[in-house]
Structure formats: C-alpha cells, structure tokens
C-alpha cells in the first residue's frame, strides 16, 4: 500500500480529500489499523504519493509519517 497517506484523524482525512478533489487527484478516504492503533488517511491513485504529501502538508493537513504504510 505505497499509495496510502496517513493523516491520523478522520478530520484531516476529509481536509485532505477536499484539497485533492480541488486538484482532481483521484483518491479515497480509508481507515487503517497500524502500530498506533486506528488511523485514517487517503489512498491516492494515478498521482505520485510523495508529491501528494507535499501538497497536503502545504495545505495544512497533518501527515503522520509514522503511520505511512510502505
């Protein structure tokens, strides 16, 4: 799942979703249970996840690097 970006919370996942939708980047909100317990994030399609992380960070979305599943 290298296209998963963990935002940690449902609220940040929705914030991320709004940003990605505005840029027409295909994605969906998902929930993932990782080392921290449950967490939300977005799965990105047809777009480089690293670039998406940069966009989302600049937009004020909290990204939990630790939660990123590689």
């Amino acid at each position, binding site marked *: 799942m290298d296209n998963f970006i963990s935002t*940690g*919370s*449902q*609220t*940040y996942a*929705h*914030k991320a*979703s*709004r940003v990605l939708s505005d840029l027409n980047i295909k994605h969906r*909100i*998902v*929930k993932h249970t990782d*080392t*921290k*317990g*449950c*967490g*939300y994030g977005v799965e990105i399609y047809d777009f480089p996840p690293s670039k998406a992380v940069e966009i989302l960070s600049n937009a*004020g979305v*909290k990204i939990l690097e630790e939660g990123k599943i590689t």
Partner: protein
Amino acid sequence: MIYLDNAACTYPKPKEVYERLKQAFFIYGANPGRSCHAMAVKTDGAVFDVREKLCKMFGLSRAENVVFTPNTTYALNVALNALAKENTDIVTSVMEHNSVLRPLYKLQKERNCNIRFFTPDFEDKNKTVQSFENALGENCSCVVLTVCSNVNGYRFPIREIGEICKKRGVAFVVDGAQGAGYFDINMQKDNIDILCIPGHKGLFGICASGSLLISDSFEKKMSPIVYGGSGIMSKRHDMPDFLPEMLEAGTLATLPVITMGEGIDYINRHGIDRLYYNACSSAEICRQGLGNITGVNVYSCFGSMVVFNVQNIQCDTAAAMLSDSGFALRSGLHCAPLAHKLLGSYEQGSIRASFGCFNTPKDAHALVRAVSRIKNLKI
C-alpha cells in the same frame, strides 16, 4: 402561538433546516469518524462541511480547530479549564450567564482563582472599556466575556476589549451564545482566542449542538475534560494530542451539527444584518409600546430583547397568564443573577421577550395589547 423566546432557542427554524434534518435522518445515519464504509465517510464529510462553514463565518483559519460540543456551556468549561491558571485573576463582567459564572466559581474554589468583575456602562462604550481596564490587573490569566447579554441584549465592545487582551498577552475567551448568527463576529478582527457558540440559537440548528472555536496560537494550550473513544489511535491511553479529536470524546451529535450548517447557509443567503434588523425592529416597537403602559416597568434593554415586569404581578404568574394568551416568554432570572442585580430585578426576576428574525411588528403590538389586558386583571 407567538414565540418570543428566541434567546433560549430559536423557533421556528428556516424551512430549509427542517428539510435538511429530514433528509439527514436517512442519508447520514452512520457514526462519523468511527467506521470507513461509504455512509460513515459521507456522514463525516457532512460534519466536516460544517466545520468549514463555521471557520469561514467566524474568521478562523483552520477547520480542524472547530470542535463540536453539546452546547456553549460545555465549550466554556473546556476553555476555562484549559486556560485558568492557579492563583491568578480571571476577569469577567456582571452580565454573564451561569455557563460562565459557575465554572468560574469552581475554579475559584479549586485553583484559588480570583474572579474580578467589571460593570458595563449601557450608554457609553468608552466607560465600559475603562471599567474593564480597571478590573484587569497584572496577575490575570484569562478574560471571559459574553458578546451580548442574554438578559437585556447589551452588546459588549468585544473588539476593543480583545485588543487590550492581545496587548497584555491575556487569553480572551468569548461566550458567543447571544451573538453567533445575530451579528458579525470575527475571531481575527475581534482579537478572540477562543469562541464558544451554540447551534440552536442564532445559527438555527436543533438543540444539542455547540462549538468551541480555537485560534491557531491556542491549539497547544487545550486539554480534554472528558475522555473516551475518538475513533483513532485506539492503543493510546490518552486522547489524541491534536484537534479536534482531542476534545471530541464519544459520538458527535451529527444531526444537530448538520442542521447548524444548514442554518449558516440560510444566514449567508439572507444576510446576517438583515435578519438581526428584523428581530431588533420588532423588539423596539415592543419596548416603546410596553414603556407607554402605566404600571409596566421596562428595564434597560437593547437589540432583540425586551425585559419587563408588570406591577403587582409576579413575573412567573404574568408569564403564565401571557402563555394562556398564546405568548411564549421566559420569566425568572434567566441564569444570569448578577445581571438582574445590576438591572434591579434580582429579587423578583423579570419577563423576557426575545425576538427572532421571523417575528413581525404585529407580534410586538399583540404582546403590548396582551400585557395591557393582564395589567388590568385582578389576581
């Protein structure tokens, strides 16, 4: 019925709010922020929409700093619990609701906080600001103030007071219960650090929705007062350490929140100033009409509120008689005992008619006639 208890809860709501509520029952039936199936994500998305709307309406920059609470009281408790430091002063006014006063009395007892009250001057804004400055000593950790009195509608000069707080580096918490949705409140321009608001009053939501809006610089100063499920980070013993989930333990009141969002849309479509003007202009007719009746005492009141007593009739009795005539009013101390002390109605209480944007001058005239009738009745 002529409903004149809008300061307690607006009624009726715009028809769009009822329609949205009916629709929301069916399409947003899941628990937001818990599961990730389609309906849960859709429901959480609807909740997020309302965070964004509140953010925009009150000049906050980040949607995640909008925390949903069951009501304003809860929001004020969270804010004061986080900001009031031990052995410091907290400055507030004598016009506050018990939603402010009781948490402060608790902090006085448990943290040895010293409550310093200031008294507004209803006629002179500068004197109110001066009175506030006189109360603000060197040891103040927090100022908490209502934007508008729930008893007599007096509006505090929030911007000026916020500016002083900012200069002095004192936290400024605002109780927006009687202001949110009635007139413009902008956290940045008004120098507000934390704003506590209800959904069921000026924003036209149904009961059980409120919000705590936190400025960026205060995000790290917050701490929860209730602990429980957050839908995330389930292995932690603590609540998540970021907003809004840190302060949103347990399931959110989805439908009240969504109706609040629809209410905001209604206000934006019709204009906040126009809606408030409707309420205030009817109230002014009522104030003048009641003021012309011998034996009716109209207290100093402003905006959409009319506060009065009928000579020789206890306020609850008079309100009950008026209820029998089809008027919905509130009698008593309105949870703001010190405000009544200032107005001179502490012992007997008073009757409050609080007008809303759907009231008309006809309603005001009808109340004046009804009061005139009961005044002449023998009890």
